[in-house]
Protein backbone atom coordinates (compact mmCIF):
# COMPACT_ATOMS: atom_id res chain seq x y z
CA UNK A 1 0.00 0.00 0.00
CA UNK A 2 1.45 3.35 -0.98
CA UNK A 3 1.77 6.39 1.23
CA UNK A 4 -0.98 8.10 -0.74
CA UNK A 5 -3.32 5.17 -0.35
CA UNK A 6 -2.69 5.11 3.37
CA UNK A 7 -3.39 8.81 3.69
CA UNK A 8 -6.58 8.52 1.73
CA UNK A 9 -8.04 6.28 4.37
CA UNK A 10 -6.59 7.90 7.45
CA UNK A 11 -9.83 9.59 8.29
CA UNK A 12 -9.08 10.45 11.87
CA UNK A 13 -6.63 9.73 14.62
CA UNK A 14 -9.28 7.62 16.26
CA UNK A 15 -10.29 5.87 13.11
CA UNK A 16 -7.14 4.76 11.44
CA UNK A 17 -7.33 1.10 12.31
CA UNK A 18 -10.96 0.72 11.45
CA UNK A 19 -10.43 2.70 8.29
CA UNK A 20 -7.71 0.33 7.22
CA UNK A 21 -10.00 -2.60 7.88
CA UNK A 22 -12.70 -0.92 5.87
CA UNK A 23 -10.42 -0.30 2.94
CA UNK A 24 -9.66 -3.97 2.80
CA UNK A 25 -13.09 -5.41 3.48
CA UNK A 26 -16.11 -3.28 2.79
CA UNK A 27 -17.46 -0.92 0.14
CA UNK A 28 -17.63 2.75 0.96
CA UNK A 29 -20.55 4.15 2.88
CA UNK A 30 -23.64 5.08 0.91
CA UNK A 31 -23.54 8.74 1.94
CA UNK A 32 -21.45 11.40 0.29
CA UNK A 33 -18.03 10.40 1.59
CA UNK A 34 -16.96 14.02 1.68
CA UNK A 35 -19.74 15.32 3.88
CA UNK A 36 -21.69 12.54 5.60
CA UNK A 37 -22.12 14.69 8.72
CA UNK A 38 -22.00 18.33 7.65
CA UNK A 39 -23.21 19.83 10.92
CA UNK A 40 -23.38 19.10 14.61
CA UNK A 41 -26.27 16.87 15.65
CA UNK A 42 -28.50 17.74 18.62
CA UNK A 43 -26.32 17.49 21.73
CA UNK A 44 -28.40 14.65 23.18
CA UNK A 45 -27.09 12.38 20.46
CA UNK A 46 -23.57 12.76 21.80
CA UNK A 47 -24.41 12.09 25.43
CA UNK A 48 -24.44 8.73 27.20
CA UNK A 49 -25.75 7.16 30.35
CA UNK A 50 -23.17 8.15 32.98
CA UNK A 51 -22.38 4.66 34.28
CA UNK A 52 -22.23 3.23 30.78
CA UNK A 53 -19.83 5.98 29.80
CA UNK A 54 -17.59 5.31 32.81
CA UNK A 55 -17.48 1.61 32.02
CA UNK A 56 -16.77 2.23 28.34
CA UNK A 57 -14.02 4.72 29.19
CA UNK A 58 -12.35 2.24 31.51
CA UNK A 59 -12.53 -0.52 28.93
CA UNK A 60 -9.95 1.36 26.85
CA UNK A 61 -7.11 -0.08 28.92
CA UNK A 62 -6.52 -3.27 30.87
CA UNK A 63 -8.13 -3.20 34.29
CA UNK A 64 -4.67 -3.02 35.88
CA UNK A 65 -4.42 0.49 34.48
CA UNK A 66 -7.97 1.78 34.26
CA UNK A 67 -9.08 0.53 37.68
CA UNK A 68 -7.12 3.31 39.37
CA UNK A 69 -7.56 5.93 36.65
CA UNK A 70 -9.66 9.06 36.82
CA UNK A 71 -12.68 8.99 34.54
CA UNK A 72 -14.23 11.99 32.87
CA UNK A 73 -17.65 12.00 31.21
CA UNK A 74 -19.31 14.29 28.71
CA UNK A 75 -22.04 16.66 29.84
CA UNK A 76 -23.96 19.35 27.96
CA UNK A 77 -21.20 21.85 28.65
CA UNK A 78 -18.05 19.78 28.52
CA UNK A 79 -16.21 16.98 30.22
CA UNK A 80 -16.38 16.67 33.97
CA UNK A 81 -14.69 14.35 36.42
CA UNK A 82 -16.86 11.41 37.36
CA UNK A 83 -14.25 9.34 39.18
CA UNK A 84 -11.11 10.59 40.91
CA UNK A 85 -8.27 8.16 40.30
CA UNK A 86 -4.93 7.71 41.91
CA UNK A 87 -2.45 6.59 39.25
CA UNK A 88 -2.40 9.73 37.10
CA UNK A 89 -4.16 8.11 34.13
CA UNK A 90 -7.40 9.53 32.77
CA UNK A 91 -9.96 7.48 30.87
CA UNK A 92 -12.66 9.04 28.76
CA UNK A 93 -14.82 8.52 25.71
CA UNK A 94 -13.87 10.83 22.88
CA UNK A 95 -16.48 12.07 20.42
CA UNK A 96 -16.10 12.72 16.72
CA UNK A 97 -14.94 16.31 17.15
CA UNK A 98 -11.68 15.16 18.68
CA UNK A 99 -10.56 14.07 15.22
CA UNK A 100 -8.86 16.32 12.69
CA UNK A 101 -10.90 19.41 11.88
CA UNK A 102 -11.55 18.23 8.33
CA UNK A 103 -12.41 14.67 9.23
CA UNK A 104 -15.61 13.67 7.39
CA UNK A 105 -16.94 12.05 10.57
CA UNK A 106 -16.20 15.05 12.76
CA UNK A 107 -19.86 15.42 13.69
CA UNK A 108 -20.73 11.72 13.57
CA UNK A 109 -22.82 11.28 16.74
CA UNK A 110 -22.18 7.55 16.80
CA UNK A 111 -18.45 7.93 17.47
CA UNK A 112 -17.48 6.66 20.93
CA UNK A 113 -13.71 6.46 21.22
CA UNK A 114 -12.75 4.97 24.55
CA UNK A 115 -9.30 6.12 25.53
CA UNK A 116 -7.02 6.01 28.57
CA UNK A 117 -4.27 8.63 28.62
CA UNK A 118 -1.10 8.25 30.65
CA UNK A 119 -0.11 11.08 33.01
CA UNK A 120 1.96 13.10 30.50
CA UNK A 121 -0.83 12.85 27.95
CA UNK A 122 -3.46 13.69 30.53
CA UNK A 123 -1.53 16.84 31.41
CA UNK A 124 -0.62 17.96 27.92
CA UNK A 125 -3.16 16.49 25.46
CA UNK A 126 -6.37 16.44 27.41
CA UNK A 127 -6.53 20.23 27.94
CA UNK A 128 -6.92 20.58 24.17
CA UNK A 129 -9.83 18.16 24.26
CA UNK A 130 -11.49 20.10 27.06
CA UNK A 131 -11.08 23.35 25.17
CA UNK A 132 -12.50 22.03 21.92
CA UNK A 133 -15.40 20.35 23.59
CA UNK A 134 -16.47 23.31 25.69
CA UNK A 135 -16.35 25.65 22.72
CA UNK A 136 -18.27 23.37 20.39
CA UNK A 137 -20.93 22.63 22.99
CA UNK A 138 -21.28 26.38 23.50
CA UNK A 139 -22.18 26.67 19.84
CA UNK A 140 -18.98 28.02 18.32
CA UNK A 141 -18.05 27.26 14.74
CA UNK A 142 -14.97 25.36 13.67
CA UNK A 143 -13.36 28.61 12.55
CA UNK A 144 -14.00 30.18 15.93
CA UNK A 145 -12.72 27.16 17.80
CA UNK A 146 -9.56 27.04 15.73
CA UNK A 147 -8.96 30.73 16.43
CA UNK A 148 -9.63 30.28 20.13
CA UNK A 149 -7.24 27.35 20.40
CA UNK A 150 -4.54 29.24 18.56
CA UNK A 151 -4.97 32.22 20.87
CA UNK A 152 -4.82 29.94 23.90
CA UNK A 153 -1.63 28.34 22.61
CA UNK A 154 -0.06 31.73 21.95
CA UNK A 155 -0.97 32.93 25.43
CA UNK A 156 0.36 29.67 26.89
CA UNK A 157 -3.04 28.87 28.33
CA UNK A 158 -2.69 25.48 26.67
CA UNK A 159 0.41 23.47 27.55
CA UNK A 160 3.15 22.25 25.23
CA UNK A 161 3.28 18.54 24.57
CA UNK A 162 5.11 16.55 27.22
CA UNK A 163 7.50 13.73 26.41
CA UNK A 164 6.41 10.14 26.84
CA UNK A 165 2.75 10.50 26.02
CA UNK A 166 0.81 7.35 25.27
CA UNK A 167 -2.84 6.42 25.20
CA UNK A 168 -4.50 3.03 25.19
CA UNK A 169 -7.44 2.43 22.86
CA UNK A 170 -8.03 -1.26 23.38
CA UNK A 171 -11.77 -1.28 24.06
CA UNK A 172 -13.99 -3.79 22.32
CA UNK A 173 -16.88 -1.38 22.77
CA UNK A 174 -15.57 1.64 20.90
CA UNK A 175 -17.13 2.94 17.72
CA UNK A 176 -14.42 4.81 15.87
CA UNK A 177 -15.85 5.17 12.42
CA UNK A 178 -18.69 4.12 10.16
CA UNK A 179 -16.18 2.18 8.12
CA UNK A 180 -15.43 -1.51 8.27
CA UNK A 181 -15.42 -3.16 11.66
CA UNK A 182 -15.63 0.27 13.31
CA UNK A 183 -12.85 -0.50 15.74
CA UNK A 184 -9.46 -2.12 16.41
CA UNK A 185 -7.18 -2.22 19.48
CA UNK A 186 -4.20 0.08 19.33
CA UNK A 187 -1.87 2.38 21.22
CA UNK A 188 -1.36 6.02 20.30
CA UNK A 189 1.64 8.24 20.84
CA UNK A 190 1.81 12.02 20.47
CA UNK A 191 4.95 13.59 19.09
CA UNK A 192 5.96 17.10 18.11
CA UNK A 193 6.60 16.02 14.54
CA UNK A 194 5.16 17.45 11.36
CA UNK A 195 4.71 14.00 9.85
CA UNK A 196 5.36 10.34 10.50
CA UNK A 197 8.80 10.05 8.92
CA UNK A 198 10.67 10.09 12.23
CA UNK A 199 9.19 6.73 13.15
CA UNK A 200 9.02 5.29 9.64
CA UNK A 201 5.24 5.52 9.70
CA UNK A 202 2.86 4.94 6.80
CA UNK A 203 5.47 3.07 4.77
CA UNK A 204 4.90 -0.35 3.25
CA UNK A 205 4.86 -3.08 5.94
CA UNK A 206 5.53 -0.58 8.71
CA UNK A 207 3.45 -1.36 11.81
CA UNK A 208 3.36 2.35 12.60
CA UNK A 209 0.74 4.70 11.21
CA UNK A 210 0.73 8.44 11.71
CA UNK A 211 -1.61 11.33 11.12
CA UNK A 212 -1.44 15.02 11.73
CA UNK A 213 -3.33 15.86 14.92
CA UNK A 214 -4.90 18.98 13.46
CA UNK A 215 -5.87 18.21 9.89
CA UNK A 216 -5.93 15.72 7.08
CA UNK A 217 -5.39 18.43 4.49
CA UNK A 218 -4.29 21.88 5.58
CA UNK A 219 -6.15 23.44 2.67
CA UNK A 220 -9.59 23.27 4.30
CA UNK A 221 -8.53 25.30 7.32
CA UNK A 222 -5.28 27.03 6.31
CA UNK A 223 -4.91 28.71 9.71
CA UNK A 224 -4.06 25.26 11.14
CA UNK A 225 -0.77 25.43 9.26
CA UNK A 226 0.49 27.85 11.89
CA UNK A 227 -0.29 25.47 14.75
CA UNK A 228 2.56 23.71 16.57
CA UNK A 229 3.46 20.51 14.72
CA UNK A 230 1.76 17.58 16.37
CA UNK A 231 1.48 14.06 15.02
CA UNK A 232 -0.32 11.05 16.38
CA UNK A 233 1.43 7.73 15.90
CA UNK A 234 -0.52 4.51 16.12
CA UNK A 235 0.58 0.95 16.67
CA UNK A 236 -1.97 -1.85 16.46
CA UNK A 237 -1.95 -4.53 19.14
CA UNK A 238 -3.29 -8.05 18.96
CA UNK A 239 -5.57 -8.15 22.00
CA UNK A 240 -8.45 -6.21 23.43
CA UNK A 241 -8.16 -4.78 26.92
CA UNK A 242 -9.95 -7.83 28.34
CA UNK A 243 -7.20 -10.08 27.02
CA UNK A 244 -9.17 -11.65 24.20
CA UNK A 245 -7.65 -11.95 20.77
CA UNK A 246 -8.47 -9.25 18.24
CA UNK A 247 -8.68 -9.86 14.50
CA UNK A 248 -5.38 -9.44 12.70
CA UNK A 249 -5.05 -5.95 11.24
Amino acid at each position, binding site marked *: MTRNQIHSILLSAFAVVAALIAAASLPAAAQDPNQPYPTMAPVEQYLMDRDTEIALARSA*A*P*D*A*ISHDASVIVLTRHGYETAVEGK*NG*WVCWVGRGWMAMFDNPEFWNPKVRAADCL*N*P*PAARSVLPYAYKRTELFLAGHSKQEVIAAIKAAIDKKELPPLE*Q*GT*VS*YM*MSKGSYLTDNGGHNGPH*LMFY*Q*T*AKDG*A*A*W*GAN*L*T*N*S*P*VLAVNYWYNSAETYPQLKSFPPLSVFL*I*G*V*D*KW*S*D*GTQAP*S*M
Partner: protein
Amino acid sequence: MRKKKVGAIAIKSFALLVVLGTACLAKAQDATTPYPNMAPVDQYLMTDQGAEIALARSAAPDSISRDADVLILGRHGFETAVKGKNGFVCIVGRGWTSAADPEYWNPKVRVPMCVNAAGARSYLLRITKITELALAGHTLDQVNEAIAKKELPPMEPGAMCYMMGKQGYGGDSAPHWHSHLMFFYSDTDPAIWGANLPGSPVVAIADPMEHLTQFVIPTQKWSDGTEDR
Protein backbone atom coordinates in the same frame (compact mmCIF):
# COMPACT_ATOMS: atom_id res chain seq x y z
CA MET B 1 18.18 -7.44 42.07
CA ARG B 2 18.38 -6.89 38.38
CA LYS B 3 18.33 -10.57 37.55
CA LYS B 4 15.39 -11.14 39.89
CA LYS B 5 13.45 -8.43 38.12
CA VAL B 6 14.28 -9.85 34.75
CA GLY B 7 13.30 -13.30 35.92
CA ALA B 8 9.92 -12.10 37.06
CA ILE B 9 9.22 -10.38 33.81
CA ALA B 10 10.31 -13.48 31.94
CA ILE B 11 6.99 -15.05 32.83
CA LYS B 12 5.35 -12.78 30.29
CA SER B 13 5.07 -14.03 26.78
CA PHE B 14 7.32 -11.44 25.25
CA ALA B 15 9.68 -11.20 28.13
CA LEU B 16 12.52 -13.01 26.50
CA LEU B 17 12.85 -10.41 23.84
CA VAL B 18 12.95 -7.80 26.53
CA VAL B 19 15.59 -9.65 28.42
CA LEU B 20 17.57 -9.91 25.26
CA GLY B 21 16.77 -6.40 24.20
CA THR B 22 18.27 -4.98 27.34
CA ALA B 23 21.81 -3.79 26.88
CA CYS B 24 23.59 -5.71 29.51
CA LEU B 25 26.45 -4.06 31.25
CA ALA B 26 26.02 -5.67 34.60
CA LYS B 27 27.79 -8.60 36.09
CA ALA B 28 28.25 -10.70 33.01
CA GLN B 29 31.37 -12.34 34.32
CA ASP B 30 29.41 -14.58 36.61
CA ALA B 31 30.85 -17.94 37.48
CA THR B 32 27.79 -19.69 36.08
CA THR B 33 27.86 -18.02 32.71
CA PRO B 34 28.70 -20.24 29.76
CA TYR B 35 30.61 -17.37 28.16
CA PRO B 36 32.79 -15.92 30.92
CA ASN B 37 35.30 -14.26 28.60
CA MET B 38 35.49 -12.68 25.22
CA ALA B 39 36.02 -15.16 22.41
CA PRO B 40 38.59 -14.50 19.67
CA VAL B 41 37.37 -11.46 17.77
CA ASP B 42 37.01 -13.39 14.52
CA GLN B 43 34.11 -15.28 16.03
CA TYR B 44 32.12 -12.07 16.34
CA LEU B 45 32.76 -10.94 12.81
CA MET B 46 30.73 -11.93 9.79
CA THR B 47 32.99 -12.86 6.92
CA ASP B 48 30.41 -12.02 4.29
CA GLN B 49 29.91 -8.25 4.33
CA GLY B 50 26.90 -8.54 2.03
CA ALA B 51 25.26 -11.00 4.39
CA GLU B 52 25.76 -8.66 7.35
CA ILE B 53 24.26 -5.76 5.44
CA ALA B 54 21.27 -7.85 4.40
CA LEU B 55 20.74 -9.13 7.94
CA ALA B 56 20.95 -5.62 9.35
CA ARG B 57 18.40 -4.37 6.85
CA SER B 58 16.00 -7.20 7.64
CA ALA B 59 15.25 -5.53 10.98
CA ALA B 60 12.85 -3.09 9.32
CA PRO B 61 10.56 -3.18 6.32
CA ASP B 62 12.38 -2.59 3.08
CA SER B 63 10.56 0.71 2.71
CA ILE B 64 12.62 1.94 5.66
CA SER B 65 15.86 -0.04 5.58
CA ARG B 66 16.64 0.40 1.89
CA ASP B 67 17.38 4.08 2.51
CA ALA B 68 19.09 3.59 5.88
CA ASP B 69 22.75 3.75 6.78
CA VAL B 70 24.16 0.30 7.45
CA LEU B 71 26.99 -0.29 9.89
CA ILE B 72 28.93 -3.52 10.02
CA LEU B 73 31.27 -4.79 12.70
CA GLY B 74 35.00 -4.39 12.14
CA ARG B 75 37.83 -5.42 14.40
CA HIS B 76 37.68 -2.14 16.32
CA GLY B 77 34.02 -1.27 16.18
CA PHE B 78 31.11 -0.62 13.87
CA GLU B 79 31.94 0.99 10.53
CA THR B 80 29.72 2.53 7.90
CA ALA B 81 29.22 0.13 5.01
CA VAL B 82 26.30 1.89 3.32
CA LYS B 83 25.47 5.58 3.49
CA GLY B 84 21.72 6.14 3.63
CA LYS B 85 19.47 9.12 3.31
CA ASN B 86 16.50 8.74 5.65
CA GLY B 87 18.21 9.02 9.03
CA PHE B 88 17.65 5.39 10.03
CA VAL B 89 20.69 3.24 10.81
CA CYS B 90 20.67 -0.55 10.64
CA ILE B 91 23.18 -2.80 12.40
CA VAL B 92 23.59 -6.38 13.55
CA GLY B 93 24.08 -6.24 17.30
CA ARG B 94 26.33 -8.73 19.07
CA GLY B 95 26.09 -10.24 22.51
CA TRP B 96 27.45 -7.20 24.33
CA THR B 97 24.96 -4.90 22.69
CA SER B 98 21.80 -6.77 23.45
CA ALA B 99 22.15 -10.24 24.89
CA ALA B 100 21.17 -11.25 28.39
CA ASP B 101 23.85 -11.13 31.04
CA PRO B 102 25.14 -14.70 30.70
CA GLU B 103 25.46 -14.27 26.95
CA TYR B 104 27.31 -11.00 26.91
CA TRP B 105 30.26 -12.71 25.25
CA ASN B 106 28.26 -15.29 23.27
CA PRO B 107 29.86 -15.07 19.82
CA LYS B 108 26.82 -16.55 18.09
CA VAL B 109 24.49 -13.65 18.89
CA ARG B 110 23.34 -11.71 15.83
CA VAL B 111 20.62 -9.16 16.50
CA PRO B 112 19.44 -6.99 13.59
CA MET B 113 18.02 -3.60 14.48
CA CYS B 114 17.23 -0.37 12.66
CA VAL B 115 17.22 2.74 14.84
CA ASN B 116 15.57 5.96 13.78
CA ALA B 117 17.46 9.25 13.58
CA ALA B 118 16.78 10.18 17.20
CA GLY B 119 17.88 6.69 18.22
CA ALA B 120 20.99 6.95 16.08
CA ARG B 121 22.00 10.16 17.86
CA SER B 122 21.52 8.67 21.32
CA TYR B 123 20.91 4.93 21.76
CA LEU B 124 23.19 3.88 18.91
CA LEU B 125 26.06 5.95 20.27
CA ARG B 126 25.81 3.87 23.41
CA ILE B 127 25.93 0.67 21.38
CA THR B 128 28.91 1.74 19.30
CA LYS B 129 30.79 3.02 22.36
CA ILE B 130 30.20 -0.23 24.23
CA THR B 131 31.37 -2.14 21.18
CA GLU B 132 34.58 -0.15 20.87
CA LEU B 133 35.36 -0.62 24.55
CA ALA B 134 34.57 -4.32 24.40
CA LEU B 135 36.70 -4.92 21.33
CA ALA B 136 39.54 -2.91 22.88
CA GLY B 137 39.58 -5.36 25.71
CA HIS B 138 38.05 -3.17 28.38
CA THR B 139 36.35 -4.90 31.22
CA LEU B 140 32.68 -4.59 31.84
CA ASP B 141 33.38 -2.49 34.86
CA GLN B 142 35.22 0.00 32.68
CA VAL B 143 32.31 0.10 30.28
CA ASN B 144 29.96 0.71 33.16
CA GLU B 145 32.22 3.44 34.42
CA ALA B 146 32.04 5.25 31.11
CA ILE B 147 28.29 5.18 31.28
CA ALA B 148 28.23 6.24 34.90
CA LYS B 149 30.36 9.25 33.99
CA LYS B 150 27.66 10.19 31.52
CA GLU B 151 30.10 10.26 28.67
CA LEU B 152 27.22 9.00 26.60
CA PRO B 153 24.25 11.22 25.79
CA PRO B 154 20.77 10.74 27.23
CA MET B 155 18.07 9.33 25.00
CA GLU B 156 16.61 11.82 22.56
CA PRO B 157 12.86 12.33 22.51
CA GLY B 158 11.30 9.92 20.05
CA ALA B 159 14.25 7.50 19.97
CA MET B 160 13.09 4.08 18.81
CA CYS B 161 14.09 1.09 16.75
CA TYR B 162 12.63 -1.65 14.61
CA MET B 163 13.46 -5.25 15.46
CA MET B 164 11.21 -7.06 13.03
CA GLY B 165 13.74 -9.38 11.41
CA LYS B 166 12.96 -13.08 11.09
CA GLN B 167 16.61 -13.99 10.97
CA GLY B 168 19.27 -13.40 13.55
CA TYR B 169 20.15 -15.23 16.70
CA GLY B 170 19.04 -13.79 19.99
CA GLY B 171 21.08 -16.08 22.17
CA ASP B 172 21.08 -19.63 23.46
CA SER B 173 18.23 -18.98 25.88
CA ALA B 174 15.97 -17.34 23.28
CA PRO B 175 17.32 -17.90 19.80
CA HIS B 176 14.28 -16.56 17.97
CA TRP B 177 12.62 -13.37 19.00
CA HIS B 178 9.20 -12.12 18.11
CA SER B 179 8.86 -9.09 15.89
CA HIS B 180 8.76 -5.90 17.91
CA LEU B 181 9.50 -2.20 18.21
CA MET B 182 11.54 -0.65 20.99
CA PHE B 183 11.41 2.85 22.43
CA PHE B 184 14.20 4.39 24.48
CA TYR B 185 13.96 6.84 27.35
CA SER B 186 16.39 8.03 30.00
CA ASP B 187 15.50 7.40 33.63
CA THR B 188 11.81 6.77 33.05
CA ASP B 189 9.51 4.72 35.22
CA PRO B 190 7.97 1.84 33.20
CA ALA B 191 4.65 2.61 34.85
CA ILE B 192 4.43 5.82 32.85
CA TRP B 193 3.44 3.68 29.84
CA GLY B 194 1.51 1.15 31.89
CA ALA B 195 4.19 -1.41 31.08
CA ASN B 196 4.51 -4.82 32.73
CA LEU B 197 0.97 -4.71 34.11
CA PRO B 198 -1.46 -7.58 33.49
CA GLY B 199 -3.02 -7.24 30.06
CA SER B 200 -0.71 -4.47 28.93
CA PRO B 201 0.86 -4.95 25.50
CA VAL B 202 3.88 -2.96 26.64
CA VAL B 203 6.84 -4.57 28.36
CA ALA B 204 9.68 -2.51 29.81
CA ILE B 205 12.83 -2.68 31.81
CA ALA B 206 14.36 0.29 33.54
CA ASP B 207 18.05 -0.02 34.24
CA PRO B 208 19.09 2.64 36.79
CA MET B 209 22.76 1.90 36.21
CA GLU B 210 22.44 2.76 32.56
CA HIS B 211 19.83 5.46 33.15
CA LEU B 212 17.94 3.72 30.39
CA THR B 213 14.36 2.53 30.10
CA GLN B 214 13.42 0.36 27.13
CA PHE B 215 9.80 -0.14 26.16
CA VAL B 216 8.94 -3.05 23.89
CA ILE B 217 5.79 -3.36 21.82
CA PRO B 218 5.25 -6.56 19.84
CA THR B 219 4.16 -6.23 16.25
CA GLN B 220 1.94 -8.61 14.38
CA LYS B 221 4.09 -8.99 11.29
CA TRP B 222 7.69 -9.50 10.34
CA SER B 223 9.50 -6.89 8.31
CA ASP B 224 8.65 -8.79 5.12
CA GLY B 225 4.93 -8.50 5.84
CA THR B 226 4.32 -12.10 6.89
CA GLU B 227 2.42 -12.86 10.08
CA ASP B 228 4.22 -13.37 13.38
CA ARG B 229 1.67 -15.17 15.50
